[in-house]
């Protein structure tokens, strides 16, 4: 376990604050994709994720990467939130804005719109395995699902994306 994580496990607020700064962007990015571009909801869920992580940090044993542990909390917070949301508040199409000043912006927007058509497990599986660089095993651990299930979500998600983005 890296030193910063060890200090956080010993309930060092400063160390946890540094860890939160290091990981916030990726956790918020994952949640933004899951909430289909709803920035406010994604950030609320990210706050809940880090707050829960702080409460449970003493239970972190270092069996997985700290980031993987955070993604697991984030995904479970998202699922809990989705269960509580009223039917009127369900997330449908991509609600985000175009990221400015980025190369390939149009392709990116198209990708995010296509991601909004995927189921949460497909979206999370693809994001963890590709954009966040987790191995299949780590992603399955983060999403609390068997490895085979994760692989089928990745496969199905890719096929859907290809169809949505005009693949052959």
């Amino acid at each position, binding site marked *: 376990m890296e030193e910063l994580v060890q200090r956080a496990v010993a309930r060092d607020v400063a160390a*946890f*604050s540094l860890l*939160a700064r290091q990981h916030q962007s990726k956790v918020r990015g994952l949640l933004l994709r899951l909430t289909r571009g709803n920035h406010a909801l994604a950030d609320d869920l990210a706050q809940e994720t880090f707050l829960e992580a702080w409460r449970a940090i003493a239970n972190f044993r270092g069996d997985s990467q700290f980031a993987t542990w955070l993604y697991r909390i984030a995904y479970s917070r998202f699922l809990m939130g989705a269960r509580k949301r009223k039917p009127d508040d369900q997330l449908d199409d991509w609600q985000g804005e175009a990221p400015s000043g980025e190369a390939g912006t149009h392709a990116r927007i198209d990708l995010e719109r296509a991601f909004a058509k995927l189921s949460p497990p497909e979206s999370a599986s693809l994001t963890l395995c590709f954009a*966040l660089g987790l191995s299949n095993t780590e992603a399955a651990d983060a999403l609390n699902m068997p490895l085979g299930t994760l692989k089928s979500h990745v496969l199905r998600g890719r096929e859907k994306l290809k169809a949505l983005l005009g693949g052959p």
Partner: protein
Amino acid sequence: MNDAQLDELLSAPLPERDAGEFSVTLMEAIARAQSRPARVFSWITIGVLTAVIAAAAVYGAAVASHAALGTQPLLVPVLLTLLTLLLSYVVFQAARD
């Protein structure tokens, strides 16, 4: 779009998000979460304090009423209890600020 193009698009890192305001809000939430047990404890303490003082006042008034207070034996304990509640409220406000 072929597989390679899709892989490239999927593997692009997620847009970087600024930590500033998010971190400040998070640290405030953690500070609130950390102070919660202390706040709960202070409320319990104040409750116990109120009960003890009220009981003592009632007892004192009951004893005194036999000698001097005559027709209004509950006046003193009621005033003391109100004073205790007022002080408790002041203590709570101070603790919250």
